[in-house]
């Protein structure tokens, strides 16, 4: 049982300036089943604690009792908003551990589809974040664009959300017939849509007063906590796994890593919007260079990495998602450990929230872009 360490110093609530308030786990603005215990002075947050674990499914333990090929669908259920990126970590870890040569076409398709997934994840983040703050219109617009991406996923993988997109050694299927046309159409329409969001939000005085200066965190603090992804880049640290340790076909792509200046909610918003533009650039280049050929490597009868351990990570939409895999030479892993970006990003919540109002806690939880499926695993 989780012990709540926060309690008021007064014995009674009468004449007490302090109050303990439970936010969640059913609160819609906590993006899932997160319980935040707030200690308030009036409406100002003095202290807070997070209670997690409501969505624990024991995915790491389940992995120890499955074959290597069977584990990929469970990874989709960590960060279900970005199932395609999550699946990629697992298959790349196993492939690199076995030294499987994955064909270049598979690498390029992986790049295109994970970037599409990044756009979809950022769009859903924008939709819910704006809704939390009070802009309902953006929700409808962002979900409209996300729907187009999900339709591409449905045609390519056969599912919209938990796609089970990749197999060890490549992909289950080659790109469907109209894949190039559909993706082209999406990336051609997308910049216009992005400008619409910016028209409604970027200069809006309500949006500015709710986001500028809220949840500030400096670059050093962000590194000390271990933040990654847009939450780190918003604080001005240009760290991106796609640049520093390129995987899939990112080494051949030309793109910029956007960084913020102040590390507040508004900067993280700008960084995420710019990231979707860069994703669009990457998709554009990858479609142009898309090579022909097979999409699957030749697999042995049983996928069996050699005994040893291996760590591999990719840049997911939420941050660096990693997999630490210990194999003992059998057909099942000995231990699987996930490096969940949402869980580590959530640790910054206290530092960001203290001193702000309760209404800003909602904005800060939104800007961290957490998914509880990944935090609780």
């Amino acid at each position, binding site marked *: 049982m989780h012990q709540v360490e926060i309690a008021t110093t007064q014995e009674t609530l009468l004449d007490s300036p302090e109050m303990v308030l439970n936010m969640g786990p059913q609160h819609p603005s906590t993006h899932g089943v997160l319980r935040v215990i707030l200690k308030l002075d009036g409406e100002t947050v003095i202290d807070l604690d997070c209670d997690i674990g409501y969505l624990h499914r024991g995915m790491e333990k389940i992995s120890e009792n*499955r074959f290597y*090929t*069977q*584990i*990929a*669908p*469970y990874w989709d259920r960590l960060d279900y908003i970005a199932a395609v990126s999550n699946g990629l970590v697992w298959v790349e870890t196993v492939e690199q551990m076995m030294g499987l040569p994955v064909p270049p076409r598979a690498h390029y398709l992986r790049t295109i589809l994970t970037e599409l997934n990044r756009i979809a994840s950022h769009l859903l983040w924008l939709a819910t974040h704006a809704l939390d703050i009070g802009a309902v*219109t953006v929700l409808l617009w962002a979900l409209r664009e996300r729907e187009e991406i999900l*339709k591409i996923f*449905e*045609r*390519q*993988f*056969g*599912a919209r959300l*938990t796609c*089970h997109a990749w197999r060890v050694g490549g992909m*289950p*299927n080659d790109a*469907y017939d109209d894949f190039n046309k559909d993706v082209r159409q999406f990336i051609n329409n997308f910049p216009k849509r992005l400008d*619409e969001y910016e*028209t*409604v*939000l970027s*200069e*809006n*005085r309500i949006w500015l007063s709710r986001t*500028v*200066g809220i949840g*500030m965190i400096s670059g050093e603090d962000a590194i000390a906590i271990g933040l990654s992804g847009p939450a780190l880049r918003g604080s001005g640290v240009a760290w991106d796994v796609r640049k520093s340790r390129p995987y899939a076909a990112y080494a051949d792509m030309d793109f910029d890593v956007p960084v913020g200046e*102040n590390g507040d909610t508004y900067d993280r918003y700008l960084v995420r919007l710019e990231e979707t533009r860069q994703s669009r650039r990457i998709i554009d280049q990858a479609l142009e260079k898309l090579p022909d050929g097979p999409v699957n490597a030749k697999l042995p009868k049983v996928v069996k990495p050699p005994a040893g351990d291996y760590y591999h990570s990719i840049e997911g939409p939420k941050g660096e998602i990693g997999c630490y895999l210990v194999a003992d030479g059998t057909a099942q892993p000995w231990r699987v450990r996930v490096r969940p970006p949402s869980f580590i990003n959530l640790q910054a919540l206290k530092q960001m929230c*203290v*001193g*702000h109002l309760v209404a800003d806690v909602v904005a800060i939880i939104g800007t961290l872009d957490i998914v509880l499926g990944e935090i609780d695993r």
Partner: protein
Amino acid sequence: MALVKTPKPTFAQKLKRFFMIDLIKGLGLTLKFNLGALTDKDAVAGHGIYTEQYPKVRPDVAPRFHGAPRLNMDPETHDTLCIACNLCAIACPEDCIDVIPMDIEITVAGKPRRKKVLDEFIFDTSRCMFCALCQEACPTYCLELTQDFELATYSRAGFVWNREMLEQGRETVKYRS
């Protein structure tokens, strides 16, 4: 305490703010969308309606969609294609498939022989996560995840499909549109 550091607005920005340019721009865009929806011919169900009219109109799902399972039959002889090899049950991560074979006596070139054929096939759709690993494992293209997506039933037992249900498929209610 809070490190609020709002950037100082310039004079032009102040003027824009005073005349509410930011709000008018945003409201103008939403108004444009509202008016545009009335005359938009690309809307899903006619003018101004963007939602799918489910269940009157069912969506067209992709050919690769992972939906309700089905056991395919030979289109000419109507014998099952399943050879009871059990590969789908081994491939399933959730262990929701049971293949129950039986032995029959056949004669090959005048000699009596025993052959393993399919007796019963149990598929627990309540545990299935539609990863399609079973479909990929099937050597005869017998087990297939189809485009049917309406799997709700009134009881827990209704989720366990037997061979007959897997071969015939479920009946769905049709609504007049």
